[in-house]
């Protein structure tokens, strides 16, 4: 125990515990306060990583932290969400009830599923939507003409369109990536800018219940692959054949208030 580095003491002293980690230098992550960089490093990666995420719906407490952090990380405009938490019920505050009248506590955190066979990518007329070398489905805003065909093609409804100039709440600073122009479609990028710095996506880092596991699906030793081996992982709308790289762990026991 004594031999472990005291991260808390280092942080309190204002030093950067990740300071001696190799850094590309001059990147967006340099702006992060040291606390953000102290944890959330990607555990392990293979030579050819293929990024995936596992959402443990048993652990999710429906707090929307990941959704809100995502908005500030990615400069997502007012009225838009890349990541949101769906409630099993009529509305956010009226969950469904079980046979005994007890409210159910089940949520479905939903963002881009980063499909291996992405319907949005197939229909995009300009190849603005593409899959990068590491399996992340991205939108090149410079190529997007705003036809919204991808939004019609996405079964998950996770794409949002900049109907006008992106609006921000007063006093809100910029995110870690440039805002997208009016007339373009955007969505979750799996925080590709953070992955480049060996950091996990901000929704993973910010989850207080640790309901999200991020990692390299091509690396047998990664945490995500260990859990996938142990508990499996469901695909959302599996019958659509989109083969998402975001998987869900179903709750193992009933949760109600």
């Amino acid at each position, binding site marked *: 125990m004594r031999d472990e580095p005291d991260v808390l003491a280092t942080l309190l002293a204002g030093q950067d515990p990740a300071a001696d980690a190799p850094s590309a230098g001059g990147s967006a992550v340099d702006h992060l306060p040291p606390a953000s960089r102290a944890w959330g490093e990607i555990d392990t990666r293979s030579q050819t990583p293929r990024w995936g995420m596992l959402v443990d719906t048993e652990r999710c407490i429906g707090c929307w932290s990941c959704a809100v952090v995502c908005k500030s990380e990615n400069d997502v405009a007012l*009225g838009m969400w890349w990541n949101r938490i*769906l409630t099993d019920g009529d509305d956010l505050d009226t969950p469904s009830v079980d046979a005994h009248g007890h409210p159910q506590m089940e949520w479905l955190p939903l963002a881009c599923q980063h499909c291996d066979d992405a*319907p949005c990518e197939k229909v995009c007329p300009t190849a603005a939507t593409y899959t990068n070398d590491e399996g992340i489905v991205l939108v090149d805003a410079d190529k997007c*003409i705003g*036809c919204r065909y991808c*939004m019609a*093609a996405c079964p998950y409804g996770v794409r949002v369109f900049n109907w006008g100039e992106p609006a921000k709440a007063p006093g809100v600073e910029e995110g870690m990536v440039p805002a997208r122009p009016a007339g373009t479609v955007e969505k979750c990028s799996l925080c590709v800018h953070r992955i480049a710095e060996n950091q996990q996506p901000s929704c993973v880092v910010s989850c207080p219940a640790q309901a999200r596991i991020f990692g390299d699906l091509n690396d047998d030793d990664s945490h995500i692959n260990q859990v996938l081996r142990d508990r499996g992982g469901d695909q959302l709308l599996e019958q659509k*054949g989109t083969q998402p790289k975001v998987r869900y762990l179903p709750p193992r026991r009933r949760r109600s208030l």
Partner: protein
Amino acid sequence: MTIIATPSPTASSRRPWPRLAWYAVLGAGLLLGLFSFGYQWASGLTVTGLTNTVTWGLYIVVFMFLVGISAGGLIVVAGSELIGSHRLESLNVLAVIVSGTAIAAAAVSIIPDLGRPEMAWQMIVSPQPMSPLVWDMAVITIYLAIAAIDLWILTRPWPMPRALRVMAMVSLPVAVLVHSITAWIFGFLVARPFWNTAILAPLFISSALVSGTALVLVIAWIVHRVTAWEPPPHVFGDLGRLLAWFVAVDFFLLSAELITAYTSQTDYHLAPLHMLLTGRLAPVFWSQILLGVLVPFVVYAVPRLRARIPLLVGAATLSILGVFAKRVDILMPGMYDPQVSMAPGIPAGRPDQGFIIDELYVPTWVEYGVVVGIAAFAGALITIGVRRYVLPRPEQS
């Protein structure tokens, strides 16, 4: 045809006011369209009624409708050419003008739907070959070229029967492709079960035949009424007889699809279907069936009714409106049917709105303004075409 008063050949040149009034209407429509489009371009699509759930609306309905309209003309020309019939020959030029106009207007109507029209050139420099939208762009361009070549052939002072026959053989398959590919833009989407059916392409073709032929009939009648143009009187009845068949096939295909979906009794198929039969689209759907299919069919099918030309033209107008309603009935159930529909829904996309799940789409004045502009553009093209190629030139007569 004694009930139709035949204007004297020089009527239009003697009384310029109706013509000038028509030009004024077209000009006002074009101005309104340009103004609405300019306003939308400056402010973004936020001035439309579209949201992140209903991402496609009136513009796409108009696009589907105009592509469909474009079938009639070329198929009337090519079809009768290939079966060796000359009964509709006198309509050839007019039919090709209507077709070419409709496809040109369809190409124009897709522009205001784009979030960044100024980036549309990306489709040419960076086309993604898997996208049905890219195929559609290509085939619409080819179709437009065919209409132009057909028009050129038909308006030579000397007849070119061989060239016309070759063009007929080329244009029929291309016409089928235009409608199929436009249908596949929707039909290939696994995310939209209501669209994801093999019958969509045949259905688009049958509706295209109805609306295209009906529009040729209506415009032929209008041109006949307001100008000196005299088609052989039998053409109206001939088109009416064709329309009886087209409407019947169109109705059969639609019924086949809806009955199959209905008997499946799975939520997957029933949710969009209930929207049509009993839900928010029921008024559009049932008036389409009654006024857009049944009433016109009776007029087309009963010889005594068909012989009354104004009645026939009225029926054709109903058919055109019916096919427009059918485009609404195809687009909207697909849009209103998100596959992941848990609370709170989908982000609306406007700063002052939260999440929406089942919001009613209502087009704004901007969308209507743009559509009026597109209609005026089509009207102007047809007017120019008719004056130039259909009416006898003053110096020739």
